[in-house]
């Protein structure tokens, strides 16, 4: 059973979230501030940490995440009321794996937790180089892509992008991660967001995506992209 740790100073929200998560089949415990994060994680194994950013006292969430990353690689999903791009980018750059803006639906939270879980499970080892999502198949070994059984021709950058999304198994792939892999020699600037979006647009055209309801690539405003792993389109 997946074990979650909720770090949020608002008792009503924390307790509601814990109940809701238990209703979804998770085991979850809660703590009221980020100062307790390290000691709790030492005692209680957690698969995913749900971390708020602002607390009445003690460390803020960003600091806590940065410190956590010095000794632990436990996945961190930030849950915060701040929806501005700067905060999202900052949280992802100090080591958060994903970011969900409050208020959110419990199913969306559940989907994000599953995406993190999927990536951590060693399903795609050397024995199985195929990632399959509905009609789309990515062969990580031969670096080829087929859509409805037909091979599609991708440029090197387009393939790299798709490969990253496929390997992430529905988990968020941030602009920073894309930058590091696709433009490795250049430093990240905000302006690169448009270069990445142009690349995504071309990839979408090759995958015959309809922008009004994208089948495969989902845009996460201000953060990056994820692959739609839903079995039904």
């Amino acid at each position, binding site marked *: 059973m997946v074990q979650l740790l909720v770090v949020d100073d608002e008792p009503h929200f924390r307790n509601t979230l814990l109940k809701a998560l238990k209703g979804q089949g998770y085991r979850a415990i809660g703590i009221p501030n980020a100062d307790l994060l390290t000691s709790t994680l030492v005692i209680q194994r957690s698969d995913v940490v749900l971390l708020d950013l602002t607390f009445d006292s003690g460390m803020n969430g960003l600091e806590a995440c940065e410190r956590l990353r010095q000794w632990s690689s436990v996945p961190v999903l930030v849950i915060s*009321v701040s929806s501005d*791009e700067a905060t999202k980018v900052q949280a992802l750059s100090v080591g958060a794996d994903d970011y969900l803006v409050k208020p959110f639906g419990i199913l969306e939270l559940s989907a994000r937790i599953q995406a993190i879980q999927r990536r951590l499970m060693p399903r795609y080892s050397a024995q199985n180089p195929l990632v399959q999502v509905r009609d789309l198949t990515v062969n990580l070994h031969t670096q080829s892509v087929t859509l409805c059984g037909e091979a599609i021709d991708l440029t090197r950058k387009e393939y790299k992008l798709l490969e990253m999304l496929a390997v992430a198994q529905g988990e968020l792939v941030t602009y920073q991660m894309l930058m590091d892999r696709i433009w490795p020699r250049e430093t990240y600037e905000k302006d690169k967001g448009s270069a990445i979006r142009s690349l995504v647009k071309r990839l979408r055209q090759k995958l015959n995506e309809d922008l009004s309801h994208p089948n495969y690539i989902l845009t996460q405003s201000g953060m990056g992209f994820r692959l739609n792993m839903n079995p039904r389109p």
Partner: protein
Amino acid sequence: MKIGAVMATWTTNVQQRIKRWQPRLFWQYSLVFLVVIVTTLVLFEVKSFIGDAKVSLVYLLIVLCCAAVAHPGVTLFCGLWSFLCYDFFLVPPVFDFRFASPIQVLDPLAFLVVAVVTGAIAERSRQHADEKIAYQKADQLRATLLNLVSHNLRTPLSTIKAVLTSLLTQNNIDAESKQLLVYADQEVDHLNRLIANVLQLSRLEASVFQINKRWDVLDELIGTVLSRWPEEAADGTLSANLAETPALVLFDFELIEAVLTNLIDNAFRHGQPPVKVAVSAHPDEIWVSVEDAGAGIPVKDRARLFDKFFNVKSKGIGLGLAVCKGLVEAHGGRIWAEFAPAYTRFTFTLPLVAGAAFEE
């Protein structure tokens, strides 16, 4: 009686004057008086060495320095006092206020004019600086307050949303109750958008508002916004025609995202589905329009549509369109509405600028 009243008024007047008495000003006047008289005496001694023209320059310098640091009244006094000293001690005939020739009036007159003008300019810039500080303080207060409000409003909303969506996933709820929960959940989202609009509008009105325009893909933005209405996009009540979109347009992704979200939200809330988003290219701008099949807004209300706190159905506060207008105008674009019996269309423009550049 009458005399008593007059006396009382006089006393309060005097008391007020004493209260208003500023020791700093008294020292400024005394200092100016002394500086001018000492300078005059020195110049009187050395006048023959340095010449007339240089002498008047020294006075001008004193008046200017005075204007930079002292009260405007003191500056005026400095000009006047310099005028008198210069005339009395240094302009022939010496020890006399008369002038030998009318031309000699020019120099002392210059002190006066400089004193008046520079005093006024200095005072204005000082007031300006004071106002600026006051504005900055007000802006800071507003920002703090808004963050507080938005945080405090969104936290209970988060709890409500968690409860509602959690209940919605339970299987033992009958269809009717489920529908009610769905309505409640939609209203939570609506309330959340209202909070976002209040924040956006106050940011627009604060002087700290910043816009980060970048070359970006408009298609991606429209796709991002449409993905917020997944069911409507799937059943075709929300669709987009992006055939004419240019590769790159210069805009702030976050802000135009807010504009389009508001327009589509309005179309669903106040209009009739289907809602169509379309992009069309014009010679020097891009038009983005959101059209619904509703009959539109009553004629009498149309002029005030983009005003703050104006709402056609007067439910809730009509901030959405005011926010859109502010954000679009910050981009150098325009926004307007068209009405026909069979549709209502809101269109905003983004200026097309030459020079899209990024390497792949």
